[in-house]
């Protein structure tokens, strides 16, 4: 064997260590990404012998569907944005509120933290079915409580005006614990000296919150906003499990982009169009992430 210098030896070992991981990233991550673009340019049916190249026809179809107010695709995009717009701020505000409350107390704070975090460790599928039962139109917990107080029963998931909000509530509920923990970590990093200074200046609690906490929590806020936005954009588990036969109904009022991808690709086997949808989703996630990073980081 050729004798190697120490540096050469190290370089060789670095490559050996990276060999399997690089194979993984190339074959399981990067090539499939390129392949997704490629599939979106075909009329791709996995059952067919050959796939026909159709150029941008799938994107053209997507563009047409987005303009047709009756198309499911358009509904999916509109709903997905609605989940983000309603869910993300709601989650951040409630989580920040609870994190601040938890900061006020000392006794039982670990206990409360655990309680709020509990739903986050459980599976979304199980949670979806539990809430579906809670929302059940006649014997569900909420409607039993409502009729106990003499209020009229609500359809929740069964009505297009309420279904999306009912599902959003579950997502917020389950993801709360995670956001709270991140906020608490962020709050802990704010040096006490700023609060001390604010107190000396005679600042009220509200002023301390507005002029110390919020600006110094900026990084945490951006981080969470980006993270939650992306996870709302990818909504799937809840919707497929909480709607009748996983159809994203009633009247398509809860369907999401990812659910459409799943249905188009694995029920209708129109993988070309489904891939075009995923490319669109990718582009949206990229753009929104960049905008949010810009927007939030210029506040202070």
């Amino acid at each position, binding site marked *: 064997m050729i004798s190697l210098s120490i540096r050469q030896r190290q370089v060789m070992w670095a490559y050996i260590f990276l*060999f399997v991981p690089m194979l993984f990233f190339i074959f399981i991550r990067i090539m499939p990404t390129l392949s997704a673009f490629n599939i979106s340019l075909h009329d791709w049916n996995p059952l067919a012998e050959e796939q026909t190249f159709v150029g941008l026809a799938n994107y053209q179809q997507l563009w047409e569907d987005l303009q047709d107010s009756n198309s499911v695709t358009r509904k999916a995009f509109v709903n997905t944005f609605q989940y983000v717009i309603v869910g993300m701020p709601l989650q951040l505000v409630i989580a920040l509120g609870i994190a601040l409350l938890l900061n006020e107390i000392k006794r039982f704070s670990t206990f409360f933290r655990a309680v709020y975090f509990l739903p986050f460790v459980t599976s979304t599928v199980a949670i979806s079915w539990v809430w579906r039962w809670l929302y059940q139109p*006649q014997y569900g917990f909420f409607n039993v409580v409502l009729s106990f107080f003499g209020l009229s029963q609500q359809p929740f998931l069964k009505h297009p005006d309420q279904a999306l909000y009912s599902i959003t509530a579950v997502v917020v509920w389950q993801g709360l614990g995670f956001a709270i923990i991140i906020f608490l970590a962020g709050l802990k990093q704010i040096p006490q000296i700023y609060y001390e200074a604010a107190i000396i200046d005679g600042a009220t609690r509200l002023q301390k919150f507005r002029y110390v906490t919020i600006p110094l929590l900026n990084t945490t806020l951006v981080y969470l906003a980006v993270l939650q936005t992306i996870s709302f954009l990818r909504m799937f588990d809840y919707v497929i499990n909480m709607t009748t036969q996983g*159809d994203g109904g009633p009247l398509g009022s809860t369907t999401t982009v990812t659910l459409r991808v799943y249905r188009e690709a694995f029920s209708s086997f129109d993988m070309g169009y489904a891939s075009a949808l995923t490319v669109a989703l990718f582009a949206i996630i990229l753009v929104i992430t960049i905008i949010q990073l810009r927007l939030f980081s210029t506040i202070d």
Partner: protein
Amino acid sequence: MKKALFYIVSLFVFGLVLAACQPQTVEVTRVVTETEEVEVTRVVTETVVEEGEEVEVTRVVEVPAESEVITIEYWQYFFDARVDAMNRLIQQFEAENPDVRVIHNSDIPYADFRDKIAASAPANVGPDVATLFYGWIPAWVDAGYLIPLPEEVYTREEIAEQFSPMVLQSELDGEFWAVPTAVRTLALFWNKDLFEAAGLDPEQPPTNLDELVEMAQLLTEYDDAGNILIQGFPVAPPGQAHHWFREVLVRQYGGVPYSEDNRTVLYNSPEGCEAFTYMVQFETELNTGSNDLFEDATQAFLQGKSAIHIDGSFRIGSIATNAPDLNYGVIELPVTNDIQSTFGSYWTHGITRKAAEDPARLDASIRFLKFITTAESGAIWVDKVGELPAQLTAAADEDLLADPILGPFAAGLPYANATFFVDESEQRQVIIDAYDAVRLTDADPCEALNEAAEREQALLDEFWADR
């Protein structure tokens, strides 16, 4: 230069390791197959009906050498009664054909059957003979998944002659692609106890559409707050009501659902709208029930929470298992304008492209398909599943027609209509959406129906465009 050499060497070494691993595993599996003992005889237990009694007969059959036994796969979705019935048929088939072994995969949930069975096709691990809803034939044919029914199974003349007329609906592109063991029709179920409780004669179910309206209202029970306790008649578009509308109500009001050549939607006519308005009124005006209550209309009927229910003969089996004490009756669908109609449908069996790849498997598949679609097999199916035999000789059986539960379904066979579906689930969704638009967003029934027709027409156009 030296550096480059090291990278190449290290890559090479890993390549060697990988390459060395691969064949080794293959060898191991080969050894295992070779040491497997060759089965010479097989004990076959067969249930034979002798003088009205079921007798189990056990016999030893000589089995050809392992290499000569052809294994084929049959797939269907998970539904207890169907699985039992098919196991029985397979047992008989294997006894008669010792050179064929049939693997029965019935582990796929109904909701995913369509997706999963098709997903297996590109992997070439799927069935040789598969069961499918007749409405899926066009999609499966388009996907290149099925092969045309070989003449050895049935010729066109044989199908026209021996089978219920609705089976002719599976003809597409001048070929038959599948053939059923059994067919189903719709009929009206009623709960005798609830009729009695509402002061109605438990032996007098509604026979026409006006009576249906009248009785549904009398049968509905509310609490003080106006919530429904007992439903007179819930309409279930995701269940069977979309069929009831298309093939029964539209025709009874004097319209036709589709053009003769199946290329044009015609139910958005004034007659169709009248039919649709009739159907939605139960929920929007008469408030006699909803598919949203008690999970769905079927569950409501099983739990004794709804008095009248429209469903297929396949429901008999689930009532027997889930609600054996239910005191119910069945009658042909209510008429109006003296027009009788019902919706006929069937799960059918086709031979897949995978089977056609190997002549021996294809031959075994043909024999198997032929076996499970005979009149005798149909008769077994009726007993186990509650579906009607697809072969006319078995369906015209007098005992069957006289049966109080199965009789009304069998009586519907001569006037049953089957819809030509190009995409069954999408076409169903169109009607569900129209119905929901009316009941949930106060849309005008005729406009909602027009929109549905427009969407469905687009589906039909897309389908026929390449033909």
